[in-house]
């Protein structure tokens, strides 16, 4: 197995080779590709609904508000996934929900990456006082119960005006999630940067006089960025769940359907035997999470240099 399990070092500084290689390897995994396909369908759907909403196209998902049948009609050939309390199509709501849920998760991810990655890189590279401060900030954040933190942020942010924009439910939701969840990625990046900092290729770059900015951006980042991608793919799922929790606590998007809001609405209907709304939203979350998870695992296997099998 030594040949098969041999640890192969990443080629330092040659980010592109690593990436190309990873993509090539990933493409060969059928299951991963199927999952990527599923994830893409979700993203395309979300994007399509977003555009449709923007340009006012009258298509199924954007017409979720229409009454298509009786209140609480069970699934039938007319309404495949049944209807909700107002006789709205659960199928349309589920499709539309992709747009809200995915954008919450996407923006939350972007925010947490935008905060966590630079802070982690700076702290890990410069160490000293700057690092102490960064560690202090994230230790403080992580010593507050997560639910309290996210609730507090959501409560505090809701309906506040920031830079001339009133924060509606959805914006408050992803801001709250993003602002509270960068700790994990920051910690990971910091650790990885510390590890790489003393590697030969960085020492070499230092010795021929690269600026520190250049070292971080051109030499370190390409070699630690795979962590961001992996973390992103796995955390995305957690964010979709966080949206569900926020909705449960009444802090999600109030005026449009999201998966979280649907699950939350449907929980009380369960005891009257109305299972389809819960089932539809849960299935949507499940399929998305499953695909993203399997894809994330495969991505991890092909990106993480440590795990690359010759």
């Amino acid at each position, binding site marked *: *197995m*030594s*040949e*098969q399990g041999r640890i192969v070092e990443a080629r330092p500084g040659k980010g592109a080779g690593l990436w190309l290689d990873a993509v090539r*390897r990933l493409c*060969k*995994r059928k299951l991963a590709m199927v999952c990527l396909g599923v994830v893409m369908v979700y993203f395309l759907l979300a994007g399509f609904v977003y555009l449709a909403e923007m340009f006012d196209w009258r298509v199924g998902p954007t017409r979720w508000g229409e009454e298509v049948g009786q209140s609480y009609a069970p699934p039938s050939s007319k309404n495949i996934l049944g209807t909700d309390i107002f006789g709205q199509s659960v199928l349309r709501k589920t499709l539309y929900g992709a747009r809200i849920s995915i954008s919450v998760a996407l923006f939350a991810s972007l925010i947490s990456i935008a905060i966590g990655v630079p802070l982690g890189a700076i702290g890990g590279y410069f160490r000293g006082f700057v690092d102490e401060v960064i560690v202090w900030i994230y230790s403080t954040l992580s010593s507050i119960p997560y639910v309290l933190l996210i609730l507090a942020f959501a409560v505090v942010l809701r309906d506040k005006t920031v830079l001339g924009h009133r924060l509606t439910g959805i914006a408050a939701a992803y801001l709250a999630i993003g602002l509270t969840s960068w700790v994990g990625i920051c910690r990971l990046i910091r650790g990885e940067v510390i590890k790489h900092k003393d590697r030969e290729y960085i020492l070499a770059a230092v010795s021929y006089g690269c600026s520190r900015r250049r070292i971080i951006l051109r030499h370190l980042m390409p070699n630690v960025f795979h962590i961001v991608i992996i973390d992103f793919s796995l955390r995305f799922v957690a964010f979709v769940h966080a949206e569900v929790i926020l909705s449960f606590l009444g802090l999600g998007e109030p005026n449009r359907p999201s998966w979280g809001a649907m699950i939350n609405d449907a929980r009380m209907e369960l005891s009257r035997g109305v299972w389809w709304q819960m089932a539809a939203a849960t299935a949507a979350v499940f399929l998305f999470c499953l695909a993203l998870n399997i894809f994330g695992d495969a991505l991890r296997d092909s990106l993480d240099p440590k795990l690359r*099998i*010759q």
Partner: protein
Amino acid sequence: MDLIANNKRDVKKSDGNETLLSVRNLSTDFFAEEGIVRAVQDVGFSIRRGRTLALVGESGCGKTATALSIVRLVPAAQGKIVGGQIVFEGRNLLDLSERQMREIRGNGIGMIFQEPMSSLNPVYTVGDQIAEAIRLHQEKGCKEAWADAVEMLRAVGIADPQRRAREYPHQMSGGMCQRVMIAVAVSCEPALLIADEPTTALDVTTQGKILDLLDRLQKQSEMSILLITHDLGVVAQRADEAAVMYASRIVETADSRRLFVEPLHPYTQGLWESLLRLGFSGRRLRVIPGSVPAPLQFPAGCKFHPRCSKGRSDNRCRSVEPELREVEAGRCVACWHARGYEDKA
């Protein structure tokens, strides 16, 4: 502790001719993302009691896969033995149950690996790790096993074994770790020791000492050794016989001295030349052109033909793969151009 005196197993004392392990037509596949990798193809060799067989070849040619196949440690998710026989002390290992196989591992066949540091469990003391095997196979109590473990450490040449037994692998040097590994492997006096590149990760002075240690242990207990290496120097000095592997197959087997004097396969010749020229003449290193093909890109015909001066232009070499044939007593080769090969058809 006298290793021989303590040998409890009911084994006839060998006369040096009795075959301990005989591998026949062993084939093992590995499942890679890209497809099935035939890591071991139709491999056959045998080891006699008390003797050392060296399995030689470049990285990636299937040596380790062969070793893992012998003890059936190819992980189920990663690969599978697809054919052949592995006869050890008269029993075909491939027919044994997992439980019976566990009895053989560590007890009948010991194994040491290339990376001594990572092959030891970092969170247990070395004494623990040796005693574990003893407790498992010899039904000894904790204390007894511990005492044996200390003795083993002493036997593999570690100074102050009482104290060292309580240390963790990270507190030791690479050479010492390898000694500990050897102690783990031979603690139950196996009939066969598989040493998978035991010295590759060590520095040159330590390498010799470890090999000496193996020699000494072998002499004391009549243990056979399957020495896996890419270092021909080691083969020449330490092995009784050698099998050369190339691209999942054995291409030549012989008494190690004869292999040295008169290699038959062009690959073996190439290997020797690169070693000899480096060692004796100081002239520019002559290397075998090209590199070992990736398992999924094996060429048709003789797998060595693209790198072979004769084979490159020979149509037969390019289309028909030569099987291993015994060309002289105790010598096998797989090359159309080898002397006497075609006569044996």
